[in-house]
Structure formats: C-alpha cells, structure tokens
C-alpha cells in the first residue's frame, strides 16, 4: 500500500504533465492548421487537409511508435530527446489536427450575415471577428472541445507503448507481481480528473448560457 500509491501517483504526474503540455501546445497549433485548411491558397489548403486526414485516419498508438522510432531508424537529425518528448510530440500533432477541425466547424457554422451586419455598420474585419464572431464560435465549439479534452486525459496512458511509465504502466508492474488492485485503482485517478474537467466545462458553458448562438 505505501509502495503502490506513491508509485501510481508518480505515474499519474506524468499523465497530467502530458495532458497539460499537450493542451498548451495543440490548442494554438490547431489554430494554425485550421487557418491552413481554410486558406484560399490552394497548395497550403491541400497540404493541411492531407495532414489532417492522415492524422485522424491512423491510430494514435501507431503515431506514437512512429515518432519514437522512425527518426532514429532513418537517422534523421531531429530525434526525440526522450520517451516523454516523443510522446508529447505525437500527442500535440494528433490533438492539433482534431482541434483544427473543431475550430473550422465552429467558424464555418457562423452565418455570413453576422459578418455582413458588422461590415455595413463600418466595423473592420478584425473588429467583426473579435467583437462579434469569436464568442459565438467559442460557445459552439465548447461541447466538442470538452469531449476531446476528456478523451486526451485517457489517451495519455497510451504513452506506455513507447515506455513512458505513466500510471497504467506503473500499476502493471504490480500486476506482474500478482497484485491486481493497483491496476483497477488507476481508474479512480482518471475518473477524478475527468470529473474535475467536466465541472470546469460545465461552468464555462453556463457562463455562456446568457445568449443563443
């Protein structure tokens, strides 16, 4: 007991570090990819959409393995410095692709009329975007983002496939010693954390409940 819990906690710290860093990097990177897949410059749009298709069309587990091992096998100059770094890179790329599609859906769901109404009032394009459109987009994408973010919490445990000793890998070492309960206990960690996120997202949705968009 006094061995197991600290060990699980150490593992879960890695899950949370992966989670937080992935979010911090993939939320803005998703904006860049969204911009790429909506631009009028066709080559950039094609590359962005091909990228999104590949990332969303292949398993995250495979992407983790590729990021971890392929650069070394091909002797590329750029290689992940650590297992944690490789996991982070794979998660960021994967989630940025998903986020970019959520953002794109949100922006495209705003009617042209909102832009035109702002324009005929003499507002500039940035004014229309930041003062009129943005909050409506945020409101519309929040449920989808909430889903994706809660999925990320659980996906962080996939990092074990490339040897990151996150919580499930930590627990698994006890399973091999014949101790089953630590493995099941990991579920409680995930439940607690995703419960917290659910409350946060519920709060955000309530804060935006004053208008319909």
């Amino acid at each position, binding site marked *: 007991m006094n061995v197991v819990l600290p060990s699980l906690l150490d593992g879960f710290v890695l899950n949370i570090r992966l989670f937080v860093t992935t979010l911090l990097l993939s939320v803005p990177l998703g904006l860049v990819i969204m911009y790429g897949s909506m631009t009028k410059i066709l080559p950039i749009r094609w590359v962005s959409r091909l990228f999104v298709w590949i990332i969303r069309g292949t398993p995250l587990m495979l992407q983790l393995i590729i990021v971890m091992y392929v650069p070394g096998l091909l002797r590329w100059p750029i290689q992940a410095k650590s297992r944690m770094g490789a996991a982070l890179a794979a998660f960021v790329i994967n989630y940025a692709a998903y986020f970019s599609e959520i953002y794109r859906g949100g922006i495209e769901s705003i009617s042209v009329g909102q832009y*035109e109404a702002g324009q005929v009032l003499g507002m500039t394009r940035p*004014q229309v975007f930041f*003062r009129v459109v943005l909050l409506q987009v945020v409101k519309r994408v929040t449920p989808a983002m909430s889903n994706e973010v809660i999925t990320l919490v659980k996906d962080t445990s996939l990092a074990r496939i490339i040897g990151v000793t996150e919580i499930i890998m930590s627990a698994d070492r006890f399973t091999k010693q014949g101790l089953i309960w630590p493995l099941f206990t990991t579920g409680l960690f995930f439940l607690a954390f995703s419960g917290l996120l659910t409350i946060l997202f519920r709060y955000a949705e309530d804060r935006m409940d004053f208008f319909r968009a």
Partner: protein
Amino acid sequence: MSVLVVENLSKRFDSLEVVRGVGFSLNRGESLAIIGSSGSGKTTLLRCLNGLETPSAGRILINGQKLFDADDPHSENLKRRRASRHFGLVFQSFILFPQYTALENVTLAVELNARKSPEYRANRRETIASIKKTGLAILDSVGLAAKAGAYPHQLSGGQQQRVAIARALARDPDILCFDEPTSALDPELTGEVLNVIRGLASRNTTMVIVTHEMDFARQVADNALFIDNGAAIEYGSADEVISHPREERTRQFLERYSQPT
C-alpha cells in the same frame, strides 16, 4: 439636390446578370420603394449600394460626389465605402449580434468607431456614457427603451427588427436601406415594424425600402421603382407606379400582390 444618384448600375455574377442598368435618384428626406418579384435583383441592388457587392457597371453619386464608378477601377474600395456612413442597411432576417443586449447592439459599432477619435482617450467615460444615452434614445424612438437590457433571443421577431433599425439609425447614415424588413416576420408582427418605418418617413428620413407590402409602400414612399428580371421597368411617384401603372409588366406583378387576402 439629390442626395443619391444611381446611374446605369449593373451587377453580374459570372454569366448571370442580376442587376441590369438600373438608375434612379433620391432627394434628401424622401423615400423610394423598390418593388418586384423575388429574385428580380432588388436585394443585390441594395447590397451594391451598401458596399457588400462591387457593381460591374455604373456609378453611385452621393451629394453630387462620386462614391463609386465602375469605369474608374481605382475608385472602388469596399472597406472605405462601408466605413463612409452614407448607407445603413436593415436586413430581412434582422441579424442582430446574439451575445449583445439590445442596447449594446445599437451602440457597439458607434463605440468602436468613436475609439478612433483622440477625444475618446481623454474622456473615455463621458464618451461611452453619451453614446449609451444616445443609444437609449434611439431605442426609445422605436418603442423599445424597456427592452434595452434584453438579449436578442428574448425578443420577438418584430422587436428584433426594431432593434436592427435602431442599430442602423445609430450610425446616422445619409440613406437608410431596408431589405424586405417584414418578410421574415409573422403577419401579426409586421405592423409594429412598418409603423416604425412610417414614423421615420414622417420625420423625413431618407430611405430606400425594398418591400412586398404594396399599401405600405404607396403610403410611405415618395417614389417607387419596379424592377423585373434585374431591369428597371417603371419609375415614378409611388402613387402612380403602384395605383396607376403604365407598364403591362408592372400591372401583372401588382395584380399578383394586391389580391385581397
């Protein structure tokens, strides 16, 4: 002198010519009703005036000054045209900003515009207070002072459209345009919106009104323009065009609309 002169205005989308050489003029304090069937190019004409479309041909003059000239390619700058405050537009489907209250909808653009002036920095609080006060007065003039704090989804369609009118008025445009302002409303709500426009006409607001309400157009507008298939067919005093049309096509159109319901 005419505040607005439109000469030979055309708009083409690829091979489709939606507006074909339409011209009219409008004196200050007068209003013009534009009538015609759906798809005849009325909305596109308004969009050309309001800087949402660039006409393919023709000229737009404001107070004798050239605002747009298709023959002078350097003259067109949609952004500048929209910022110029010559036109205001009330859309068929209101298009209020959902996250702002009625009052904020009215004052948002005015306040953003005021930020450009150096006074704003110096007297920020006073400027905002005065914009708010003016906004409230305008809301009051459309009968919605009591709804200043309401969000669009809490208002009826007729109330939303009256807020949209107040929003357009707040910029104090030279010419206020209406694109079928009652077509998206339930019949029992059209009256309150038409009454607001009647009030504006009685206070000599210069207006261009695209409408299917023929009785209203005859009462309120000084002149009327009948458009069919993108072309101006008949142009004259509202009473003449609507009550005593000379053109056969105008007559046919009016017969379809004036049937008692």
